[in-house]
């Protein structure tokens, strides 16, 4: 069997890519997409660990999928409100609140 470490490295790599996306993207939609990528990396970690330990990690993964879906719904509602108010989803352009 493939050692657990490889799955954990895959999960860490995906998490890092998602983190880079959150920090470097300008469009709010792409930032939310990167957060989804991070949450899916967590899922890979959980399911791989559950397969090796024969534990309840798969159930935790189902909870995570549900919470991620709800979070994305909320995030897009707020982004939609921003788009209606400003006409853009570029996060660099929202800078009324400073220091």
């Amino acid at each position, binding site marked *: 069997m493939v050692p657990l470490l490889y799955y954990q490295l895959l*999960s860490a790599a995906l998490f890092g890519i998602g983190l880079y996306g*959150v920090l470097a993207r300008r469009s709010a939609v792409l930032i939310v997409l990167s957060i989804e990528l991070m949450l899916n990396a967590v899922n890979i970690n959980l399911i791989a660990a559950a397969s090796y*330990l024969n534990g309840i990690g798969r159930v*935790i993964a189902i*909870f995570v999928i549900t919470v991620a879906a709800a979070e994305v719904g909320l995030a897009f509602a*707020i982004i939609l409100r*921003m788009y209606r108010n400003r006409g853009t989803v570029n996060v660099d352009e929202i800078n009324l*609140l400073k220091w």
Partner: protein
Amino acid sequence: MLPGRNVELYGGLLAVDGFGLFFKVFFLAIGIGIIAIALEYGKARLQHRGEFYGLLLFSILGMNLMAMSRELLTAYIALELLSFSLYVLVAYGLREARSNEAGIKYIIIGALSSAVMLYGLSNIYAALGTTYFSGIAAALSSPATDNPVLWVGLALLIVGLGFKLSAVPFHMWAPDAYEGAPLPVTAYLAIGSKAAAFALTLRLLAEAVAPAGDRWADWQLVIAVLSAVTMLVGNLVALAQSNLKRLMAYSSIGHVGYTLAGIAVLGDDFALAAKAVIFYLVVYAITNLIVFAGLASYYNSTGKDNIADLAGLADRQPFTAAVLAIGLFSLAGLPIFAGFTAKFYLFAAVADGGFLWLAGVAIFSSLVSLYYYLQVLRQIYIEPAAPESGTEGDAAAEHGGGHHDAEPEQDSLPVPMLPRPSITLSATMGVGVLAVIWLGIYPAPLLAVIEFASSAILPMG
């Protein structure tokens, strides 16, 4: 629920004990206070008021579950329930651009922090095979556990909780979210979400990590450094603020620093720190409630929230000015007010726990915080009230001395009096002021209740 009897629900996921019970009553009282602040504000400025109160109730449910949870996934789900309600509440000012911007910043950073915390949870699960706090404590106590994945998991879990608490390298969402959100939601963020996150952190550290002995000592140093940086940054940046809500945000970051110092000295045989932290949370909540109630009564009358706009409040709304003065003195930690007693217990616990340098930094930050609280009080009590306000200003300026005719009995410029605060706000402020003064002079009954609460998570104290 009799003292001394602990019950577990759902096979160990939730604990019904003194700690959970105390915090549930506490969160419900906070909810009542926030609803009292939100009544008049909501009628004037919020659309969809029904959903506002519904979201508030859901978030209180989330807070209750956070205080009761004994397992990482339950804690995470409860934390997300609280956070989702708050994301929507912060963005509730639909027409205000600042509210929308605060909502965007809060949800993006909040989602990022929950992903980080979840990654930590998954690492802990991968290393140990269990997510129960008691399982983590058992694994950490045995010297055979030496898995780097576990350390990464614990560190990321603390990072995720640090975001929720707005501890310092993770605090960037707090000033924007506090400034943009509607005022009752700012009060709720400052009081409710912080208290719930602290309840969760207390239970997590006391049940899962503190029993581990010398491994805990390493983490204690990490939390102590976090606390020192939080205190210093929160109080020093607050010196430069000119918006009231932003000032309260940085002030609450400073208070999070003090409370984290108390958490850093937790130990399996040292329960004084847990009692001091819980007492500090209660006092912080009551004091912030009266400060925000005062700010709400001023905002309801004028719609302004900058520090300079408070000029002359002592003449215009004397009751609100007095309540704000008592609240700010208590936050600064001046005697006979509850803030002094709370800080005294907390800093004494920190010094007893061996972190003398941390107590010194805390006292220095407390002194610094006095400056910016006094700045607000200077505006209220010493600066004269501006003679005109709002649109009347231009008309009066055109008419030159026209306003002299309106108030012939005044020998100088008339003071534009503000309406008295509403009944609910006045009642909230009155009860809160009485509580602040009572807890400052005679905290023993509350301390007895807190003893009952903290002995549930630290049985040997």
